[in-house]
């Protein structure tokens, strides 16, 4: 190992601490090699450590990062019960038929009361359990809002580095405003079902704006055509307003359980991918920038808060003390923040 030689040739003798650092480095390199080789067990373990914010994962993620950027990332979002898992299962099958490898991240909610979670998206994906070309990971939101988890972007990078051609992300069942997926996925599929509300619901800002492709699943149900019509109105109004960027979001009726409409959806995804890649206006680059930006800000925020809290702690001001001061009205949160920033950042 390189690090080892540098250390050994330096002028002072090695101390115990050096050996443990070297051991950690050797372990990290070993893990990186195994992940790049596509090893399932190491990948699974790394994803857990990332989810738990184990500090050593930073170093591993740094070294994996140069190996990312090859996978195509597709997001599936929509309210609970619209059929996200079933559609993910079907689309995964389509990519497998073309011999492409698939990574799946399926998000389910964490209980705000106990911190526990039931991760049940796999129930719809059983046919892929024994396929070495598919890696499925269930992730709990752990209090994160926005449809994904704090760790999703890092997990995507790991699956990308391990060589998955396509990564399918299933968001938690969303309501009206969980739009994080657009910053992560290249193509976002927004799924709804007939009878989810009147036209005003579709007019509202937020989740209904983010689809590159719309799916009306369970299209055998009454009212499917009406839902499609309403979505079409919405899409067309949006296009006129946005000074068309050249992509008209298709609206596809599916019955995911039976596989109806899935081929059409798959083709639409591929068409959007071609559109992004061949786009003169550079929308693929735009997307890369958007994703890098949101990852960067997220990481900065987390590190900055950590450092600030450590410095406060060093001055004998724990977060708990500040909280108490606010609760007891000895201070207000606005002046406290100002005060902390004035003292710590100047």
């Amino acid at each position, binding site marked *: 190992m390189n690090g080892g030689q540098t250390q050994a040739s330096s002028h002072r003798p090695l101390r115990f601490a050096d050996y443990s650092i070297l051991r950690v480095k050797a372990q990290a390199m070993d893990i990186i090699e195994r992940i790049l080789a596509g090893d399932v067990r190491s990948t699974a373990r790394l994803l857990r450590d990332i989810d*738990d914010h184990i500090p050593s994962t930073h170093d591993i993620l740094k070294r994996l990062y140069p190996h990312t950027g090859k996978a195509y990332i597709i997001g599936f979002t929509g309210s609970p019960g619209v059929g996200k898992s079933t559609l993910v299962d079907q689309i995964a099958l389509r990519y497998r038929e073309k011999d492409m490898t698939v990574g799946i991240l399926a998000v389910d909610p964490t*209980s705000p009361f106990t911190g526990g979670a039931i991760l049940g998206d796999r129930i719809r994906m059983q046919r892929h359990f024994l396929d070495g070309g598919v890696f499925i990971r269930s992730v709990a939101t752990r209090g994160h809002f926005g449809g994904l988890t704090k760790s999703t972007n890092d997990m995507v990078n790991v699956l990308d580095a391990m060589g998955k051609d396509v990564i399918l992300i299933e968001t938690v069942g969303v309501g009206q405003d969980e739009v994080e997926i657009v910053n992560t996925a290249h193509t976002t599929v927004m799924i709804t079902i007939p009878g989810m509300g009147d036209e005003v619901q579709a007019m509202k800002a937020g989740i209904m704006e983010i689809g590159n492709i719309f799916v009306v699943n369970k299209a055998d149900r009454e009212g499917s055509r009406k839902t499609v019509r309403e979505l079409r109105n919405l899409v067309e109004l949006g296009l006129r307003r946005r000074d068309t960027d050249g992509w008209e979001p298709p609206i596809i009726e599916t019955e995911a359980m039976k596989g109806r409409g899935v081929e059409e959806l798959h083709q639409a995804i591929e068409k959007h991918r071609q559109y992004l890649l061949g786009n003169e206006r550079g929308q693929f680059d735009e997307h890369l920038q958007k994703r890098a930006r949101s990852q960067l800000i997220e990481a900065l925020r987390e590190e900055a808060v950590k450092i600030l809290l450590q410095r406060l702690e060093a001055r004998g001001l724990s977060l708990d003390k500040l909280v108490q001061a606010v609760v007891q009205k000895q201070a207000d949160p606005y002046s406290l923040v100002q005060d902390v920033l004035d003292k710590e950042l100047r």
Partner: protein
Amino acid sequence: MREERRLRILIAKPGLDGHDRGARVIARAFRDAGFEVVYTGCHQTPEQIVSTAIQEDVDMIGLSILSGAHTYSFPRIMELLQENRAADITVVGGGIFPLEDIPWLKDVGIKELFEPGAKLQDIIDWVKGNVQPREAMVA
């Protein structure tokens, strides 16, 4: 910031019988105990269960069985865990099985067996006392 390591548990139902009420009740109880529970539904083969356990990096597999299929599936699951270098995952069973099977099931590596009438709280306490979230790969 380092978060508290959470216990991850797979609840699976091997074999052909489709009565998963028990599995669901235990999954729900584990959720309420603060565990992250991966639930995969019925009709799982030992191969599917072990593959899921590895991909999901769980600390424990809870097998629900009513049909008698434990005589094949339990030892097979232990065998597969060995083959895949995943023998560190704790395996427990719950449901209906002849009492005389318990000793040999424990011999093949099933850590504990919970029979009908076992109290949810007792099961949760057993898990908390006997299964720890695994260590990070690199501390």
